[in-house]
């Protein structure tokens, strides 16, 4: 039997779209990036070769995620935050655990 990979609902997809757009705006504003948010694609690498963020930016990003989305980020979590999509996955997962995803 083929295990069906459940699709997110249209509502969840809409929330993810909104979250992704917010993340891009937050990233550009909080890290003073000299690009437009729409130039950040959802799977673009944030660190090293992509946007070129470094470890200092990583800390700022962690603070921004906690402040803007109510999700605490530990040092161990930062390694997961490698793209907008990964960031969105992380925030959604934590918000679901906290019961705040639909807020």
């Amino acid at each position, binding site marked *: 039997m083929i295990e069906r990979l459940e*699709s997110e609902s249209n509502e969840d*997809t809409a929330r993810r779209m909104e979250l992704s757009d917010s993340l891009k705006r937050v990233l550009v504003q909080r890290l003073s990036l000299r690009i437009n948010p729409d130039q950040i694609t*959802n799977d673009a*690498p944030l660190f*090293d*070769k*992509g*946007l070129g963020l*470094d470890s200092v930016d990583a800390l700022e990003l962690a603070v921004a995620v906690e402040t803007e989305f109510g999700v605490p980020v530990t040092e161990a979590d930062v390694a997961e935050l490698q*793209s907008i999509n990964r960031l969105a996955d992380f925030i959604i997962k934590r918000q679901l655990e906290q019961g705040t995803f639909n807020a």
Partner: protein
Amino acid sequence: MLETYTAARTAVALIDNAADARIRISGPDCRRLNEFVSIDLDALHPFHGLVGLVIRADASLVAVVSIFKGSGEFLLFGEAERAEALCAHLTDCLAGHNVQIEDLRKTHGYLSIVGPLAQDVIAEAATEDALGLSFLSFEDNARLGCKLFRAGFTGEYEYRFLASNAEVAELRQRLEAAGQAAGMIAGDPAAFPVMLLEVRSLLHRDIAAGANVLEAGLHWTINFRKQELIAGAVLNELKSSVRRRGIMIELAESGAAQNGDTLSIEGEEVGVISRIVNSPTRNGDIGLAYVDADIGWVGVSFDVISGRRNTIARAIAAPTVLTRSTYTS
């Protein structure tokens, strides 16, 4: 291939990248190269590099490359399959200018060590000072007798070595000796395509027929603020009219789907699979697909219509595997 993959993801592997494209552009007019690439070479610091695109005036892709600025020269590296086309294109573009274009495949060997323990090997082979190299930078390393690059696109720590043919054999011996304590193996370059796709490091082959570099999500390789960006007007127009979006997918069943299979939702064709690989880390097939832009979002499921057997795919986030070398440059 699996042995190399395992070593590169958990320890360290020594890879001979003999077939990879490597080109040196030097001479008084070598800065003219800036007119034909998507990044701003004038803004690049010496002994640093960037990932960029060599594109034509119509924004079609010649190759995805890493370009490093040396002293009076530029070094370009790219995938083996594009080596000839890249050389020919740059020769054509720079004709009439006072430059030398050298295909270093003929004169230089190109090795790399890749894996979580690569730094241990470098510290042993080239002294701990080499650990100070930041990502996408390089140095002339006297101890190793080569140009030493901190560069790699698999998500793992990686160092690359460009050495003359006369020196590469001795370099390899030094690296093998330095890698013994770490259990370094001589690896198979065939493992790289899987590792690259796992972290969505795209090659020319990954740009599906008819897709453009923005649909492939390569915005980050383009400096839109660069003055006189080649194909700038075309790229800016494409930016606002993306019809398809490149997404990473996971397949419900390994071995069911293949390159070129159609993706559909409720019977309506919405995309195509560009490439599928089996990911040992994820224990299943993953791939790159191009789908209608308005549904190219993580979490969306697709029916895969395959010549082998139909299956299901779901869009997932990249990188699809997490590694330890993130943001530690």
